[in-house]
């Protein structure tokens, strides 16, 4: 028997939790599929069992996840954790693997709230053990209370890099340096969005406070660095970069990289959703209407997977999606939807006042991709920048062609880690705009699954099986 639901929500981060809780409150039959073993997503990871001491370090932005998780728990939803979705058909079929069993479920509507990831920026040595995402290290603390030991270098760009730095300073971690690729003098492009940002003094105060913590700590803090490199033989030993005229090198046991956040779009690409290009933050995102509806009527994108706006906005966007789906399914009336949506949008607007300013301030610049010949671009298949440049010189300009020839993007991560950088590399080499370079074609399964799991699937494909066919032939 194939199970059917009113709505299938994929992901239990801020957007997924808010959306499914709201749908549940309308009395709808909701299935939530989440890849992790506990709800919370990345930003609210382990929110339900995080000890008080850790909550204090993680602060109020993290604590906001608690009431949301409680609301998510309060409703009678079908929640399946540890469920990896590996195929979605926009007509309403979702295939997923859980506890070694793959199955297909159907829904009238599908909400993909699969969130964002840290932008992968290949630098020399980034595959060395000891080089990790700053958000990843933060996850280890939320989830397991892990704190870095030895000397730590933080490098990259963006508010989350500074936030991680502040939390490490507070925990007394030995930080050798903070190396920002963000220029010393901000671009004039930050001026116009600075005005709406000024409407949220609380937000600006948070930023100023972070910079003050860093300054008071005495940790060396460089801006506008270039030529970032991780050095070591079997594991990280030091970090090198250029700051102004000066070459700097720091001994380090751990290098935490962060270059902003981009939507994880594989699920939308696999379905064939139309995408749009964000030219400030240089990423693709599914094209959606004001409710998060994609070009497929039954498929919605909610949260940072639809557009990176941060955790609070993600929850609000999940709410808006729920209101629209609830109306389409007849659970609420259109006037109730509009009334409630107006309130949600008011919050959303206020939350997003500073966002264009932050996006412009920490806009990724092509220079931050320091493509050295020997740098591994594709971690899964160990394809170097040089190997890709060689096939570009031979006339392979489409990412899918490059993939076939070099295997770049053909490993288990399916190009999640190399795709964005590959596009930048092609653009840089051919003086083409990155949005015109193209993207990898994404095919199922979105996550690797054993073949025997596929073979064991209970699929009701046709009413008459092959046995009947042979009987008739006789």
């Amino acid at each position, binding site marked *: 028997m194939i199970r059917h639901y009113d709505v299938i929500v994929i992901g239990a981060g801020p957007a997924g939790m808010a959306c499914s809780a709201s749908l549940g409150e309308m009395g709808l039959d909701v299935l939530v599929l989440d890849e992790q073993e506990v709800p919370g997503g990345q930003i609210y990871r382990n929110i339900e069992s995080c000890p008080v001491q850790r909550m204090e370090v993680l602060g109020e932005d993290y604590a906001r996840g608690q009431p949301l998780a409680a609301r998510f728990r309060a409703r009678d939803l079908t929640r399946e954790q540890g469920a990896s979705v590996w195929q979605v058909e926009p007509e309403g079929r979702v295939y997923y693997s859980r506890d070694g069993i793959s199955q297909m479920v159907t829904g009238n509507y599908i909400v993909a709230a699969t969130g964002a990831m840290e932008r992968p920026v290949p630098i020399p040595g980034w595959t060395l053990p000891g080089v990790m995402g700053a958000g990843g290290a933060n996850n280890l603390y939320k989830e397991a209370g892990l*704190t870095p030991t030895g000397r730590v270098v933080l490098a990259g760009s963006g508010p989350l890099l500074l936030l991680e730095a502040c939390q490490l300073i507070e925990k007394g971690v030995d930080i050798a340096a903070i190396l920002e690729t963000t220029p010393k003098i901000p671009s004039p492009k930050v001026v116009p969005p600075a005005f709406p940002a000024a409407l949220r003094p609380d937000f600006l105060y948070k930023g100023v406070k972070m910079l003050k913590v860093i300054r008071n700590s005495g940790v060396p803090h460089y801006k506008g660095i270039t030529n970032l490199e991780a050095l070591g033989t079997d594991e990280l030993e030091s970090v090198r970069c250029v700051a102004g005229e000066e070459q700097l090198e720091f001994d380090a046991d751990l290098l935490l990289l962060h270059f902003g956040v981009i939507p994880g779009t594989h699920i939308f690409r696999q379905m064939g959703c139309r995408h749009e290009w964000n030219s400030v933050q240089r990423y693709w995102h599914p094209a959606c209407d004001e409710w998060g509806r994609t070009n497929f009527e039954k498929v919605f994108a909610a949260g940072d997977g639809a557009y990176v706006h941060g955790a609070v906005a993600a929850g609000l966007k999940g709410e808006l999606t729920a209101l629209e789906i609830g109306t389409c399914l007849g659970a609420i009336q259109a006037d109730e939807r509009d009334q409630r949506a107006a309130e949600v949008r008011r919050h959303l607007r206020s939350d997003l006042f500073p966002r264009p300013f932050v996006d412009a301030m920490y806009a990724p610049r092509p220079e931050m991709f320091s493509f050295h010949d020997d740098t591994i671009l594709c971690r899964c298949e160990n394809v170097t920048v040089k190997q890709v440049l060689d096939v570009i010189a031979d006339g392979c300009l489409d990412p899918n062609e490059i993939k076939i020839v070099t295997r770049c993007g053909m490993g288990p991560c399916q190009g999640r880690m190399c795709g964005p950088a590959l596009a930048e590399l092609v653009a840089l080499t051919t003086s083409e705009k990155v949005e015109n370079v193209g993207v990898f074609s994404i095919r199922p399964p979105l996550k690797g699954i054993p073949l025997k799991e596929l073979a064991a699937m209970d699929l009701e494909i046709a009413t008459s099986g092959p046995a009947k066919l042979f009987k008739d032939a006789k």
Partner: protein
Amino acid sequence: MFKHDTSIPKETVTVTFDGSPVNVPAGVSVAAALLGKGEKHFRKSPSGPRTTSPHCLMGVCYECLMEIDGVKRQSCLVQVREGMVINRHLHNEGGEE
């Protein structure tokens, strides 16, 4: 590279890691448990001469892939359980993938 927060007493579970029993905190991912034990090398890269280490810790990069109870899984997405069998196959010659 990392240390576990020991100020809060935590239940532990015993897993078999590369053939030896290891005590790790309960309720954490396999990746977090092993990083907290000082393990940095998680598997041999199937396509090149290097060992890999968890990089993204949010289920994206596959660098933390390990054989967990007989199936290759992303160790950052799976929680440790009593009796779990975890293998890295660090010394197998090209036999991992």
